[in-house]
């Protein structure tokens, strides 16, 4: 830990709708962004469904909050780790996920992808590298 900055990981394990965990996790991420910590998000198990593109919640009467993920770059939240095995187990591929980009100030605002698909083993390494893990 340097200069009072901690590594925060928000672990998203639940489908976006059906329970409120995903939405209330995103609310923590957005508030937490104001604290200038080193933030990462992890998506595993049914949590990978949170990033699926073209979500339409009209018929279930709840708000579609998935566009908010695309705003995370503006909050300097640029590391979204997605577990490959969780995608595979659900018949999903990278093409099923929405495109989430961030602008790198240090490289003339080059657009870079925020989503990084990693293996389960790598996810374990990401987790063990953290100071604070909040699991939703």
């Amino acid at each position, binding site marked *: 830990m340097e200069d*009072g900055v*901690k590594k*925060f990981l928000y672990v998203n394990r639940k489908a976006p709708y059906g329970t*409120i*965990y995903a939405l*209330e996790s995103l*609310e*923590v991420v957005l*508030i*937490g962004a*104001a*604290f200038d*910590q080193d933030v990462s998000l992890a998506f595993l198990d049914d949590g990978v469904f949170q990033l699926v593109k073209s979500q339409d919640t009209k018929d279930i009467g709840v708000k579609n909050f998935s566009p908010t993920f695309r705003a995370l770059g503006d909050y300097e939240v640029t590391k979204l780790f997605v577990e490959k*095995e969780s995608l595979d187990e659900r018949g999903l591929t990278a093409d099923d996920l929405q495109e989430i980009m961030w602008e790198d100030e240090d490289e003339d605002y080059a657009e870079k992808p925020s989503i990084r698909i990693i293996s*389960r*083993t790598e996810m*374990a*390494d990401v987790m*063990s590298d953290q*100071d*604070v*893990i*909040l*699991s*939703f």
Partner: protein
Amino acid sequence: MDWRAQDHEPIRTYPLLGGDDLKFGIVVSEGPYTHQASDTAYNFVTAALAAGHEVPRVFFYHDGVNVGTRLSIPPQDERNIQQQWSALAAEHGTDLVICIAAAQRRGLLDQNEADRQGKDASNIAEGFRISGLGQLIEMGIETDRLMTFGD
């Protein structure tokens, strides 16, 4: 193959009892009586304090906010989860924070908020206070370990 059995760097372990005193931040994210989370958190906090550790704050989120209503009336022969927490706060000065966004969705209001929102009642128990999610992040920054009790 059981992926949990794959080779990883060993998970770091820390002495919880004995050794150096630690500052714990606690998150309770499931509702009382429905779920064991608030009971286990209470037992953990009690044990940690007894072992000489500090627990400056407990943050109640998701349905965990329901722990803080003073209007719950469990049967006489059951534990009263809210009263256990209120007593703990009174004895040890632990800051019991209920997330305002989660609380408003679920009908948990202090008198201030009831007045502001034009509601005819408030229901926050002694020792609890309503505040923002920033308190959760701050707790993560300022404690040595953050523990979540939930599903």
